[in-house]
């Protein structure tokens, strides 16, 4: 776990210096900002990579909404990173599975590469200092408690919690 932390956090430090993200396509409501993860210092950020064609993502969205609602006041921010090449597909997905959290688009895959995404979906838990403290490959309904525990863990480390 420590080795993973080191490997991921060293990459993430690189990431911070880039503040990269492609502009979200016009279809996404109010999501054309560039994603600046450093603006979330002091919060726990869950970065979730998803796509409209990814079936487990349909199961993960209701759960992510739940988590966002439950822990928002403790300092949790969820960012869904959409990997669709066609923005229309992502919009259709969001109509059926609405997100109560921020969605940004990464059609070129630049952010996914920086996070070294090896599975779809993937979610990364970032602590208050922007370090990756947990990574979850795939989304399994049976592991929801485990995913939630990682979030709670990171939240408990935040100052003021």
């Amino acid at each position, binding site marked *: 776990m420590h080795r993973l932390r080191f490997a991921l956090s060293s990459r993430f430090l690189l990431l911070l210096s880039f503040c990269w993200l492609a502009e979200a396509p016009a279809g996404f409501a109010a999501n054309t900002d560039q994603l600046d993860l450093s603006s979330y210092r002091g919060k726990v950020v869950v970065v979730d*990579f998803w*796509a*409209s*064609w*990814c*079936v*487990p*993502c349909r199961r993960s969205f209701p759960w992510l909404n739940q988590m966002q609602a439950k822990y928002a006041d403790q300092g949790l921010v969820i960012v869904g990173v959409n*990997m*669709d*090449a*066609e923005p229309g*597909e992502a919009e259709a997905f969001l109509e059926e599975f609405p997100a109560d959290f921020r969605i940004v688009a990464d059609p070129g*895959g630049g952010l*996914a*590469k920086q996070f070294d*995404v*090896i*599975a*779809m*979906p*993937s979610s990364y838990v970032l602590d208050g200092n922007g370090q990756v403290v947990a990574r979850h490959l*795939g*989304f*399994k309904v049976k592991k929801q408690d485990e995913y939630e525990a990682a979030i709670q863990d990171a939240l408990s480390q935040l100052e003021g919690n």
Partner: protein
Amino acid sequence: MHKYMSRIGLLVVIAFTAGCSSLGVEPWERDVLAKEEMQLVTDPVEAGIDDHIYFSKEASSGGRGFGGGGCGCN
């Protein structure tokens, strides 16, 4: 003829396996592969019907593989 065919077949498999690690797409580039029509067996019922017909009328059977492709999720 058989010997050549099996040797060629073996070479193909070895070449495949050797070259495999450099081939493929990133996990987020599987939109096309996730489509139903891109699965190895698009219609299992039709495939089963055809297998049954050809097996009853010819001397060969099956041979089809399974697994792989798709969205690669989870």
